[in-house]
């Protein structure tokens, strides 16, 4: 590549920049930018890095709370968990790359989120993955599921972080754009947190980790565009992951931080060297001078444009204390990682790049970092649906058959096929594994503290009513944390939507953020980090709006938790909440009646909080043995899931108005709690005392789930249906079945 490439408005447009944006760039540069400079501007100003369409609305989210140490803006959120410890976490999407190249796309998504966490000085202790694929019958779906799951496992297992939860869903609206949302959490000491803001002039800027290659050049720009039929041509923009180098990078970074050498640190993620250097400088009100001849490369003759936009993985940029340089270098040499001083901090607020003795870029750093355009995109208020009474839905001919069919449906069947490809035990601290309400990992070095993790959103509800659906995503996450006995602390959001330049899509985005914000305030789960993924469209068709919420909860004493499968023979079963009536947008409606219509369930946040507080108190006082929240599929599915987890049956007898709505309705703010018979009356009295509605619905008994005269199925038959779908879909040879 030669330096004579002429920069034209057309070339700017090819970089995804609008005419207005390009004029502004020319104005801020003070001349026509060079090709390298254009690449840098486009990388900083694309949607992925600048949040230009979403920033206005993200600012409305609640981000503060008594335990919040660092909210959004850093690599990950930081929340106090007591004893001078903090939990550091974030969720981030790798949607576009994973559709193009599922294994590497998913793998580097995991790598990226882990780096975000340890860049802040935290050792990763848990991960989750929220995956959304097209309809099972679509020709690409199996290939994508197989590649993404292998990629997530391939990276996380090798790196050595347990995967403790997540989601997998299927819907035709993801046929052309799958979603891969990766979550990671780590633990650090409160005074051992590192941020990206550089301080001090004339200090060495150090490049660490793997060498720079041509992989991923322009990845962030690709991730800010819609797909069309030329998608396969974009494969070279996907990065390639090396989990072993990342593991070494983790150890080296933590060792380096402990040595006191680090002033500022930023990982090279989207837009690699460009984004990390600009952020460190812009946040610290410093200029940065980089000499590209000093950057470790693995390919010959890379142009400055390619080097500045490469998204090669497992790289970091740091500003170090000069007196510690030798000590720092020795640590990186020990871990077989590259260590090179590639530049310095300056006092001129310019971002300058040298290549073979020539200055190939000279740009104003604050404008690059902070003055990305911010749009108030036009949006329209989403339409609403009128409520649908239960009598508008046909009851099933056979409740047993309906229940079995739902248990074995793509969205409700067991995800064992997926999570058995993830290491869930590594590090030896996993207390609750995937398959329950939330993953639980104990805090190493503490006698009884643990953290709970859950990832949730119900995209069909968000599509039907973005505001209520946004609330519901937070509420379900809250309930899942409560169900294991954790106090919900905070959340991260991963907002996946279509093209924000369409007012309907923007309206969905705006309304769901309003819902998320209200729920986070009411349920005291501030948003401390997050990521926005827009332009998830192919040939003009957008995904279902999918604002994934990743929640973290604190368990002060892990002896006092509940699990989905911990009920004992004879335990009394309570439904916390009331009889269900809402069947619109339910799994029953979709799987049994074959339609998706009407509004999703409404979320009463005060009721969510009151019932959540009550259930949490019951678990903490140790008279609730098992607990499960009621979500997709309603009461009957929740009961069946508890039976399958414990291997025990249930005898349920309760009064209802509409049996199909009572069994399968998806009304919110509800739990099933199993209580030792001895404590049952006390539990009931406490419910009444707290003003929390409840129904005593039956007992744990035998090996069949019996509900009035409607359902009578053996636990084994339910397990069979529940476990069969995924392996059959993936065509996996039946090797050994699960040990239990």
């Amino acid at each position: 590549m030669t330096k004579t490439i002429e920069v034209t408005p057309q070339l700017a447009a090819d970089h995804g920049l609008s005419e207005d944006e390009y004029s502004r760039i020319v104005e801020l540069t003070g001349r026509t930018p060079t090709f390298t400079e254009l690449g840098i501007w486009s990388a900083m100003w694309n949607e992925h890095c600048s949040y230009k369409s979403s920033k206005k609305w993200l600012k409305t989210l609640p981000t503060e709370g008594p335990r919040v140490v660092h909210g959004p803006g850093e690599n990950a959120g930081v929340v106090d968990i007591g004893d001078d410890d903090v939990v550091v976490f974030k969720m981030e999407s790798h949607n576009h790359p994973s559709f193009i190249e599922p294994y590497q796309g998913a793998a580097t998504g995991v790598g990226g989120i882990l780096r975000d966490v340890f860049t802040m000085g935290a050792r990763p202790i848990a991960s989750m993955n929220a995956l959304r694929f097209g309809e099972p019958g679509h020709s690409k779906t199996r290939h994508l599921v197989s590649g993404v799951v292998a990629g997530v496992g391939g990276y996380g297992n090798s790196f050595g972080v347990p995967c403790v939860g997540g989601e997998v869903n299927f819907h035709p609206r993801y046929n052309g754009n799958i979603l891969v949302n990766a979550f990671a959490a780590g633990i650090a000491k409160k005074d051992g947190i590192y941020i990206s803001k550089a301080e001090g002039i004339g200090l060495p800027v150090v490049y660490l980790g793997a060498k720079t290659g041509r992989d991923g050049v322009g990845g962030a720009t690709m991730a800010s565009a819609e797909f069309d039929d030329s998608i396969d041509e974009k494969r070279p923009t996907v990065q390639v992951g090396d989990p072993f180098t990342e593991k070494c990078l983790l150890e080296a970074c933590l060792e380096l931080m402990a040595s006191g050498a680090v002033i500022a640190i930023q990982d090279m993620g989207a837009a690699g060297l460009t984004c990390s250097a600009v952020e460190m400088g812009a946040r610290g009100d410093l200029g940065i001078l980089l000499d590209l001849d000093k950057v470790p490369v693995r390919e010959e003759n890379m142009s400055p444009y390619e080097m500045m936009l490469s998204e090669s993985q497992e790289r970091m940029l740091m500003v170090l204390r000069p007196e510690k340089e030798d000590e720092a270098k020795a640590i990186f040499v020990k871990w077989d990682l590259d260590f090179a001083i590639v530049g310095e901090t300056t006092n001129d607020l310019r971002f300058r790049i040298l290549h073979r003795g020539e200055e190939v870029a000279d740009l104003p750093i604050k404008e690059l970092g902070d003055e990305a355009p911010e749009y108030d995109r036009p949006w329209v208020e989403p339409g609403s649906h009128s409520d649908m009474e239960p009598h508008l839905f046909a009851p099933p001919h056979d409740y047993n058959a309906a229940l079995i069919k739902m248990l074995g449906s793509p969205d409700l069947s067991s995800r064992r096929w997926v999570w058995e490809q993830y290491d869930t035990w590594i590090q030896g601290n996993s207390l609750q594994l995937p398959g329950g309400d939330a993953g639980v990992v104990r805090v190493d070095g503490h006698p009884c503290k643990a953290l709970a993790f859950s990832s949730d959103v119900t995209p069909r509800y968000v599509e039907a009513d973005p505001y209520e659906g946004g609330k519901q995503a937070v509420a379900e996450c809250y309930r899942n944390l409560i169900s294991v006995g954790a106090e919900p602390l905070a959340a991260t959001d991963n907002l996946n939507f279509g093209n924000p330049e369409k007012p309907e899509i923007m309206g969905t985005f705006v309304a769901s953020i309003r819902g998320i914000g209200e729920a986070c305030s009411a349920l005291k789960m501030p948003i401390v980090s997050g990521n926005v993924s827009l332009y998830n469209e192919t040939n003009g068709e957008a995904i279902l709006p999918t604002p994934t919420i990743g929640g973290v909860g604190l368990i002060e004493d892990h002896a006092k938790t509940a699990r989905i499968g911990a009920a004992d023979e004879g335990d009394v079963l309570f439904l916390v909440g009331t009889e269900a009536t809402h069947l619109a947008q339910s799994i029953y409606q979709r799987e049994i009646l074959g339609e998706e219509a009407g509004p999703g369930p409404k979320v009463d946040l005060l009721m969510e909080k009151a019932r959540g507080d009550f259930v949490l108190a019951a678990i903490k006082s140790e008279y609730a043995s098992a607990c499960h929240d009621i979500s997709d599929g309603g009461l009957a599915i929740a009961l069946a899931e508890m039976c399958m987890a414990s291997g025990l049956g249930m005898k349920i007898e309760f009064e209802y108005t509409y049996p199909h709505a009572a069994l399968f309705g998806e009304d919110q703010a509800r739990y099933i709690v199993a209580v030792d018979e001895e404590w049952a009356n006390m539990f009931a009295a406490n419910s009444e005392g707290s003003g929390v509605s409840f129904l005593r619905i039956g007992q744990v008994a035998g090996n069949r789930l019996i509900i009035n005269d409607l359902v009578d199925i053996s636990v084994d038959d339910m397990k069979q249906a529940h476990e069969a779908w995924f392996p059959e879909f993936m065509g996996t040879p039946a090797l050994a079945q699960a040990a239990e």
Partner: protein
Amino acid sequence: MIAALTKISGNAPTRIWHTETNLPGCDLIVIPGGFSHGDYLRSGAIAARAPVMQAVRQAASKGTRILGVCNGFQTLTESALLPGALMRNAGLTFVCKEVKLEIANADNPFTAGYKKGEVIRCPVAHHDGNYFADPKTLKSLEDNDQVAFRYAEGTNPNGSLNDIAGIFNKAGNVLGMMPHPENLVEPEHSGTDGRRLFEGAMNLLSKEAA
């Protein structure tokens, strides 16, 4: 593994860097799991050629007890301290699940905490755990009672020949196993079946030392 060894023995084990060429005096050498060098060539192949393995070979020949778990087992077969090879799982995917293990030989310090024929719970987590050996090697393993653990009750997760989950060397001082007993050693792990492997080994070692 280090956490489990520390909790069970009350002492933190000494960690040895892969480029070391000498080992301190010790009763037990543990090669833990964990995708050494990314397993980018073959699992354990590069680790088997690390400088430290020369010292491990010497220790093995002198009778020092050596335990290799998961990637450690792969490293031991790659360094020919144990016979056979660990191929890609028959299902071609990583497998993380709980299996049942039958104690095939309890006449060894490592398995002395169990009874022969006893069936225990144990987690596995690997991509390449499919034990293979040629018929002659397999027969000699069986004839010499070198099989330590077998997957039991139809839980073979990877297609291993003869359901082999772990083997001893001929002298009995080297054990390699794919399952992770260190992840089932505390009540919080939902069971302690793995603990007896370490306790049995330590009891016998301390008796020998006395």
